[in-house]
C-alpha cells in the first residue's frame, strides 16, 4: 500500500507569536517498493514532511496513511511504537544518536526496544553491521572511537536492525566524502532491490537522484511543487531552471549536445547511450 498524505498541514508553535506553517495542505502518494527522492531548498518543509512518516510529528490538519495505519489530526493516535518499528527514520547527522559502550550494543538498542530478544538482536545487529560495511573486528569497540563516516554507518545499521519496511533517510550523505557518499547510496539502492524495502531519501545531490532514485518529489514553501519519475524529471531543463536546480553532469552534457544540433532524445539520461547516439550520428554524416 502506498504512503498517502491527504491535505496534511503542519504548523509549528501553534498559538504563539512564533507560529509557522511548515506544510500547507499537502496531498501526496509515495509508491511502495521504490526509491523516492525528496528534494527542495533548505526550509522548504522536507524534514517536517518525513518526520510525519513515523509520527514523530503529528499533523495539525489533514491525515496520513502509512504502513496500514491512519494518523489524523482530529484523533489521538495509538500504537505509535509499532509504527516506528515499521518505518525506520534516519536523522540528519545520525552519528549524534550513538551512546552505548560498544558498537554492537548500540545497534542492538533499537531491536531490543521493540521487544526482540537478546540473541536475535545480536544476530540482526551483526547482519546489518556487515551490510553497511563495518569490520567484524570493530564490533566491540566504542562507537566514539570511529571516524565520522563509520559512525554514520553504525547509526544507520542501528535503524536497519529494527528491520523496518519503509526506510526514510534525511540527508544521509551530508558531510561525507564523495566515495563514502557513493557507497552509502549504493547501499540504499541494494536495500531496495534485494530486501524490497521502500526507501525515501531527502537529498540535495542531483547526481544521486539521477543514479539511485526512481521517483522525485519536489517540496517548495510547504507545498508539493512536482512529483514524477526520475527520467521524466530530468527531461525538461526548463523545469529544473525554474526550480533553481543545477542539473547533473550528464543532463548538462545532453543539453549542450542538443544545442549544438545533435538529434538526441530528451529522455536520455545515460552516458553510454549518449555516446552511442553521438557516435552513430557522426557516422551517419560521414
Amino acid at each position, binding site marked *: 500500500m502506498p504512503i498517502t498524505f491527504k491535505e496534511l498541514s503542519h504548523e509549528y508553535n501553534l498559538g504563539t507569536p512564533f507560529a509557522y506553517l511548515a506544510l500547507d495542505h499537502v496531498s501526496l502518494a509515495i509508491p511502495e517498493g521504490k526509491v523516492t527522492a525528496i528534494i527542495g531548498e533548505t526550509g522548504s518543509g522536507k524534514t517536517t514532511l518525513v*518526520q510525519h512518516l513515523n509520527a514523530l510529528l503529528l499533523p495539525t490538519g489533514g491525515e496520513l496513511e502509512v504502513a496500514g495505519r491512519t494518523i489524523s489530526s482530529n484523533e489521538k493516535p495509538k500504537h505509535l511504537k509499532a509504527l516506528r518499528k515499521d518505518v525506520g527514520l534516519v536523522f540528519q547527522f545520525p552519528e549524534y*544518536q550513538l*551512546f552505548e559502550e560498544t558498537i554492537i550494543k548500540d545497534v542492538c538498542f533499537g531491536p531490543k*526496544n521493540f521487544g526482540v530478544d537478546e540473541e536475535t538482536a545480536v544476530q540482526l545487529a551483526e547482519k546489518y553491521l556487515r551490510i553497511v560495511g563495518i569490520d567484524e573486528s570493530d564490533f566491540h569497540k566504542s562507537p566514539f572511537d570511529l571516524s565520522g563516516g563509520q559512525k554514520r554507518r553504525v547509526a544507520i545499521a542501528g535503524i536497519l536492525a*529494527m528491520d523496518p519496511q519503509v526506510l526514510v533517510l534525511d540527508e544521509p550523505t551530508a558531510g561525507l566524502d564523495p566515495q563514502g557518499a557513493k557507497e552509502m547510496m549504493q547501499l540504499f539502492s541494494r536495500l531496495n532491490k534485494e530486501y524490497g524495502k521502500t526507501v525515501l531519501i531527502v537529498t540535495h545531490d542531483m547526481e544521486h537522484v539521477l543514479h539511485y532514485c526512481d521517483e522525485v518529489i519536489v517540496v517548495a514553501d510547504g507545498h508539493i511543487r512536482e512529483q514524477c519519475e526520475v527520467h521524466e524529471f530530468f527531461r525538461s531543463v526548463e523545469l529544473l531552471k525554474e526550480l533553481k536546480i543545477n542539473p547533473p553532469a550528464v543532463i548538462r552534457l545532453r543539453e549542450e549536445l542538443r544545442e549544438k544540433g545533435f538529434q538526441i532524445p530528451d529522455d536520455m539520461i545515460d552516458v553510454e547511450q549518449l555516446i552511442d547516439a553521438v557516435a552513430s550520428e557522426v557516422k551517419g554524416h560521414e
Partner: protein
Amino acid sequence: MNNFALGKYMPLDSIIHRMDPRAKIGAMLLLMVAIFIPAGYIGYAVIAVLIITAVFLSKLRLNFIWRSVKPMMFMLLFLWIINVLVLRTGYVMFTVFGFKVYSDAIFQTLFIIIRLLLMIIVTTILTATTKPLELTLGIEDLLTPFKVIHVPAHEIAMMISIALRFIPTLIEETNRIIKAQTSRGVDLDEGTLKEKLMAILALIVPLFVSAFQRAEELANAMEARGYIPNRPRTRYKQLEMTFKDYVLLLLSTLILILNICIWKGFI
C-alpha cells in the same frame, strides 16, 4: 520541551521591552530583596501591584506567565504537604482523618509560595522582555565597578551570554535526540524503571557528547577570530538610561524601603 517558557525571550514591542537592561536588572534585584523581607500581606500586595502592572505594560500574555510558573507548581504542592506534616505550631485549624493541621503550616507555607511565585514572575518579566544580549551587556556594566577588586566583569558577562545563547540550541539538540531515539523505539512515557533509566541514558550521553563538541568548536572559532579575554573591547550597542528607567528604579527602591519599614515596625 517547546512549552518551556521559563527564561524565554518574547519578541514584543512594549515600554518594558524598551527599558534599559541595567534598570530592569537593578529593579529585579531590589524587588528580590523586598520579596525576602517578611513584611506581611501588605508588603506582598504592594510588590504584586507593581509586578502585575509590569506584566500588563509588557504585553506578555497571561498564558505565558502561567506556563513559566507551572513547572514549579508540583514543587510548591510538595512543599505544602511536607510543611503540613512537619510544622506543628500555632492553633489547630482543621482535622483530616484524625490528623491535626496547624495554622502555621498553612500560613507559613503560603508565605513561601507567594514569595516563590513573585520571584518567578519577576525573573520571567526580566528575561521575557530583555534580549539575552542586552541582559549580558547590563550585567557587564553593573559588574564593572567591581573590577577594582579583580572581578572579571567582561569574562563573566561573556560566559553568561554564551550560556544563554546555547540554551535554545541545547533544547533544540535535546528535542532532536529525543526524536532520533524515539525513532529507535525509546518510549519516555511508558516502560519499567530500568527501561526509563536506559531511555534517559540514551538522551544524556549524546547530549553531553555534542555539548562538549560544540564548546570546543566555539572556543576554536573565537580564538581564530582573535578573541582574548580581559582585553578592552568596543561595543556596537550603547546603553542609555532614560526617564522611565529612573522611575522604575525609584519605584522599586520605594517598595524596598516600605517593606523594611513594615518589617522593623516603623509603620
